[in-house]
């Protein structure tokens, strides 16, 4: 039984890694007041880029690097459209998802080797190896924390750092000020436009890293539906975490856990249909949204960015 729990936890952490990166990225973006619905497309395009680069160079890390670059570029595109060109953030984000999924699917069928009919699907490339920490990985249950790959280990550092930066540093305060009230932030001498660009790009980079983890470690390999809606789960997770990086981990484990438990349930002939299990995160998110809106003082304390998805136009004042 303990062995089973350990295994489920280990799979949960691996499944949750891409979610943790993307969720923290999106939390930073949304805290600056920008809603980026392009997560799904960004993850998808960075996943294919990571795999293609790693396949041809033989270097996994180069794959991660390029995925981060792709994520950053799409983040910059969203910032350009929604900050500089004042486009509707919902439409801009959805466009990035549409474009990203389309292009990823196209490239996945064009960038492969000629002998595989230019297809990237069905070929195996280099993958990130699991590096168990000998000794610690034998601890019952908690051992799952120590039999992961380097990218998953990095989340143990990323989560506290992301939390500390957002709530305990000057830069984090400025970032939250921009998301809360851009006009006040500007009056305080904070450059709203620069801040929003910066954190939308950083968000994109982290989302890209999450996408790369799918093709280079979790799956690994490329299939045409590799993200399987993870980008949308991220949008839900951000709300579920109430815009706090520390809470993102709980959500990611919960969502990753649902993934992991499902395989087990299917194996034993489950009685709960998987559709209902999968519905749970979305319903929980709606519930969180209702409670937060209803109980406004609570939401203020928990830090929902008040200016989320409201464009800032200095000239209109």
């Amino acid at each position, binding site marked *: 039984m303990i062995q089973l729990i350990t295994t489920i936890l280990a799979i949960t952490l691996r499944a949750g890694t891409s979610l943790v990166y993307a969720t923290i990225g999106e939390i930073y973006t949304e805290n600056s007041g920008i809603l980026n619905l392009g997560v799904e497309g960004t993850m998808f395009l960075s996943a294919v880029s990571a795999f293609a680069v790693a396949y041809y160079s033989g270097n996994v890390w180069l794959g991660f690097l390029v995925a981060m670059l792709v994520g950053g570029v799409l983040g910059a595109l969203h910032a350009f459209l929604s900050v500089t060109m004042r486009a509707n953030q*919902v439409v*801009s984000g959805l466009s990035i998802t*549409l474009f990203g999924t389309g*292009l990823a699917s*196209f490239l996945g069928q*064009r960038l492969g080797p000629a002998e595989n009919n230019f297809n990237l699907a069905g070929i195996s490339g280099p993958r990130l190896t699991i590096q168990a920490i000998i000794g610690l990985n034998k601890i019952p249950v908690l051992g799952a924390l120590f039999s992961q790959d380097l990218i998953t280990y990095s989340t143990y550092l990323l989560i506290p750092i992301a939390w500390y930066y957002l709530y305990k540093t000057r830069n984090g305060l400025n970032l939250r000020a921009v998301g809360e009230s851009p006009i006040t932030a500007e009056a305080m001498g904070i450059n709203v436009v620069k801040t929003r660009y910066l954190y939308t790009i950083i968000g994109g980079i982290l989302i890209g890293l999450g996408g790369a983890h799918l093709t280079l470690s979790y799956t690994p390999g490329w299939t045409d539906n590799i993200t399987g809606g993870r980008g949308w789960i991220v949008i839900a997770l951000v709300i579920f975490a109430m815009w706090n990086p520390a809470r993102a981990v709980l959500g990611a484990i919960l969502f990753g856990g649902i993934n992991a438990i499902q395989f087990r349930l299917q194996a034993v002939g489950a009685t709960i249909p998987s559709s209902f299990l999968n519905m749970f995160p979305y319903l929980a998110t709606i519930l969180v949204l209702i409670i937060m809106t209803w109980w406004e003082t609570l939401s203020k304390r928990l830090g929902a960015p008040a200016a989320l998805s409201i464009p800032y136009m200095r*000239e209109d004042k």
Partner: protein
Amino acid sequence: MRLILEKRKATSQKAFYIVPIVSFIVALILGAILLLITGVSPIKTYAAMVKGTFGSMHVFSETLVKATPLMLTGLGVATAFRMRFWNIGAEGQFVFGGIAGAGIALFFNDFISSWLVLPAVIIGGMVAGALWASIPAALNAYLGVNETLTSLMLNYVAVLFASYLYYGPWRDQQGFGFPGTARFSEEAWLPRIFGRVHFGIIFAIIVAIILWFIFNRTRWGFELKVIGENKVAAKYLGIKISKNIVLALLLSGAISGLGGASEVAGISRRLQAGLAVGHGYTAIIVAWLAQLNPIAVIFVAILMGALLVGGDQVQLMMGLPAAVGLVLQGLILFPMLAGSLFTEYRLKIIRPEKIVAGKIESEA
């Protein structure tokens, strides 16, 4: 000297028409560059796409088939966006319309006279879509919950619920393991006009005309517009915002639900996995490209449908990935989004002497 953006006093009519056309051309150029990089002739590809979508009656009918659900969901979305209610739940409303339509077609056709089955399927789909849309509407109108996020989450609930039904209790026992319900009996089939083009397209055109009339000629249409442009002003004019949000969203959901019911009754004639393929998301883009004009939605939907069919055709004829169509859809949007700025703003060159004490005097 520097450039600033100045808000126009009225939206520019010229920019309103030029921006979409320029965007389309820019998308074709960007797409051509992408095709060249991956070693394909863009001219051949585009020629194949045009031939494969408008080249013969048969392929054109397929374009219309793909465009029909986009028209109806696009019209549904446009109704909500009219008052800047960011309903991105058309996908879920469409799917629920399909679920209700299928449920009635499968389980009620023994209880009602046969000529009533099809109207019941269609109306049931509309009611289901409306009810599904009423959830984010009521949550927003009475509790102030962000509608973008709730309507998005409900899409997944709807899609998962549909898959539960066709994998579970509604699954066809004689289906050889195929995930889907049994085929509807014939009285629940939506008649086809030519090829696979079904009556859904007529519904879309009728809805577009009705919406055009509501938006431009009725007091309610005017109220929706005022709510969209200025909620404070709407309040002073005595417009009931909460009630209008719910009413408009019931209409919006009903139109998307009509799309879902028409799709199952006109094309697949059963509930199956292919129903939720993202029409509700493309619909947002259709509504946006059409600048929320219901008549324009019809034509933009045909264009977007053509890009999808064109992608399939390119795959058949040239062995290229069908995703070419999706890439082009995406590429149209970026210049369009960037360009829409110029309908509301104009670029203005500020010379140094005009800057008085560091402050720019703007006419707006």
